[in-house]
């Protein structure tokens, strides 16, 4: 067990964004956070990285309270991939090297350069290393910010809709990469996703959020029902099977 969340509340003004959220995430697994727009997925991820402060509740990382970590300490344990990557006049290698910021003191050592090089190899993107971010496609940019989070060598990786701006091929590539990294590097991956079919193809466990509450925490993908999807998303659907995986098809 790596991440334990208990009774998390988050209020924005008088509006309740997260309402008693309790769950946990394990090393080697991909936990998918699912739900409609405004369900609180982004806020939940931001709370898990200390970017938003919950009004109540406990977040434990390997048994230690999140609030007890200082900035660089937390950055060595938790990596966060935001929804929209920013471009700048940097080459990919420099952008990924920023992920080593919590590890090096005044400036990066040779060891940091080696580790960044290893990240590029792991993601099979060595050919992008010296390319400026401004000359990159959305898919390449998404890989760069994922690489940056991996360069932090976190034990928990958070991703906010990592595939929202990607074409089908890039979506599949990024998601299968996440699964491979979770398994191969013994990392806990928590990602929010809109595409249910891909979530069920690449995820291990699933958390359905609606209006800040957990509607269902699912361990077994075969238990996905049309009623659940309809309840969470407010849209009538059919659920069929294809190759052992559930496929959600909107009705109408």
């Amino acid at each position, binding site marked *: 067990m790596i991440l334990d969340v208990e009774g998390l509340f988050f209020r924005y003004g008088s509006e309740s964004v997260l309402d008693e959220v309790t769950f946990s995430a394990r090393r080697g697994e991909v936990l998918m956070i699912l739900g409609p727009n405004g369900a609180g997925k982004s806020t939940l991820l931001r709370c898990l990285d200390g970017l938003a402060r919950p009004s109540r509740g406990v977040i434990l990382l390997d048994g230690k309270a999140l609030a007890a970590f200082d*900035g660089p300490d937390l*950055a060595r344990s938790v990596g966060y991939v935001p929804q929209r990557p920013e471009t700048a006049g*940097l*080459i990919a290698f420099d952008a990924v090297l*920023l992920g080593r910021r919590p590890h090096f003191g005044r400036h990066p050592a040779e060891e940091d*350069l080696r580790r960044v090089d290893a990240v590029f190899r792991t993601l099979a993107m060595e050919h992008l290393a010296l390319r400026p971010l401004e000359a990159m496609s959305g898919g390449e940019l998404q890989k760069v910010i994922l690489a940056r989070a991996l360069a932090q060598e976190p034990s928990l990786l958070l991703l906010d809709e990592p595939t929202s701006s990607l074409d089908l091929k890039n979506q599949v590539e990024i998601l299968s990469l996440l699964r491979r990294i979770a398994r191969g590097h013994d*990392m806990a991956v928590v990602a929010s996703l809109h595409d249910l079919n891909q979530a069920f193809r690449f995820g291990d466990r699933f958390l359905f959020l609606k209006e800040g509450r957990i509607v269902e925490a699912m361990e077994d993908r075969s238990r996905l029902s049309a009623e659940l999807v309809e309840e969470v998303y407010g849209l009538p659907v059919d659920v069929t099977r294809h190759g052992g995986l559930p496929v959600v098809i909107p009705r109408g």
Partner: protein
Amino acid sequence: MHLEEGHLPEGYIRHLDAKRRWSAVAASAAFLALLASLCLGAVPVPPLEALRSLLGLGIDARWDRIVRQIRLPQALAALLAGTGLSLAGAVTQSTLRNPLASPFTLGISHAAAFGAAASVFFLPRSGGTPLFFRLYGTAAIALATSLVAAAAILALSRRRDSPPEGIVLCGIALGSLFTAATMLLQYFADDVQLATMVFWTFGDLARARWPELLFMAVAVALTTVYFLGRRWDLNTLLAGEETARSLGVSVTRVRLEAMFVACLVTAIVVSLVGVIGFVGIVCPHMARRFTGDDHRFLLPGAALTGALLLLLADTAARTLLLPRVLPVAIVTAFFGAPAFIWLLGRKACR
């Protein structure tokens, strides 16, 4: 993660070396410009004599005096003010994530000029103000008023929906406000005060003598050291505020500190040589074309470009209309304003 199997990336090391070379080129160009500015003027000095004088090996006393007592202080003032203003511009651009930011376009320079003018108006002149107060008192009040402008800019930039152009419009409003306030003071000032106040409204490097130069040198050196020390934190800001925070950087602290230091160096430069426009916006962008946004290379690049260009502008201001000698701010405005408009157009095209 297991990341032990990486190699030292040769391509990247070569890339770093190539970037470092730009600084060497800019530094050599700045040195040549310094030599040229020592030679040029009403009385031309042969380059070899100028070099000898610069190194303290001058033979001819007449040339030695022209170079070391007249031209060298002004050239050093140009190098220092250019470095300070360009660094302040580069760093405000990064901290506000706004390519149009600079002390001048944000009204911070005008606010500092108002503070300097106010120090003349409100503080007593008891038979020749002591040098100590003339330098530090004026600079301190200029800093205080420039911080007011910076606080307004920072407050507006915290709103997520404010576009880069909006921030600059706010800067224009602040600039006009502080210019009007300076004019109000000038309206009520007596002749002696007025003559002193006018000095700050258009920058002139000719007034800086050795005590001023020493003060400016210390301020610019400390600023450079501070910004260079923060280069990796400034780099993480390039990745966006959220990412910077998730990388363990205390974004608010870095922002406030960097803006404070940018205001400090601007206020000191303005209080010593007056408002010099466009150096802080145009020079960092020229440097960015060669160095990119990485502060390891951008900061030295912007510093050298600022030093080089302000020195060239000042040399032009001294020599173009001989025997007339112009204040340098007029030249930077004539070249800087079109460059700034070009920059706006290029940004709009993207």
